[in-house]
């Protein structure tokens, strides 16, 4: 079984590339039993979405 440290590393890695099926399976198993790491994953997903909507990057703001 994965520990939280390793799970957090895989969650981060998954933001940048596809995990191998073993890592993917192990991660899913860990997330199934660990609320803290589930929150961590949700927060990583949120961060990526938030950055996309950063005010400085928004297309819909007025120009000078």
């Amino acid at each position, binding site marked *: 079984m994965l520990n939280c440290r390793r799970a957090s590393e895989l969650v*981060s890695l998954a933001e940048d590339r596809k995990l191998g099926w073993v890592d993917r399976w192990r991660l899913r198993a860990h997330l199934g039993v660990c609320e803290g790491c589930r929150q961590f994953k949700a927060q990583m997903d949120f*961060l990526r979405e938030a950055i996309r909507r950063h005010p400085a990057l928004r297309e819909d703001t007025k120009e000078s």
Partner: protein
Amino acid sequence: MEEARQNAPVPDEQGIARYRDYLYRYALLNLRDESRAEDVVQETLLAAVEGKERFSGRSSVRTWLTGILKHKIVDLFRRQAREAPLDLDREGDPDDEFAELYFDRADRDHWHTFPRSWGDPERSLEDKRFWEVFDLCSRQLPAQLARVFYMREFLGLETDEICKEMSITATNCWVMLYRARMGLRECLETRWFAPAR
């Protein structure tokens, strides 16, 4: 509002300069330094004016200008990285010392502090104060981590492009992204989503 471009009219200098504020905000977000941001925006506008015949009209003027700006930011990051060579022992390799900040080695590498629920975090995205905290937390990232993180998340580069630009290995790259994310997440939790009472 952008009008549909049928024949790709060449943007004039005013048509280019009106994006200065947007470009400046974009540059400042990435460079964290007002005068560097001003310089790179100025260079971008100049390059655009000098090269405006090459504007194809396939994208909007703003997208075109942002593309020029992105290239200049990446160039700057590459130069900065070369001038302050990466201390790979500290920043580029996976190590236990970093892990100890967050995980308890004596307790099967559980979190010292388990991530808390952030409730409905989307609501914060419309709050100006959230973005102030976000920018504060993001500016706290050490320069080397910030560059790699910004290239990935703000500039949208793939990791292999980042590795090439920064002359680092894939391992260095994922370690730095991991550390940046861990730091940013913790800062946001501590300062915004679940501050200690």
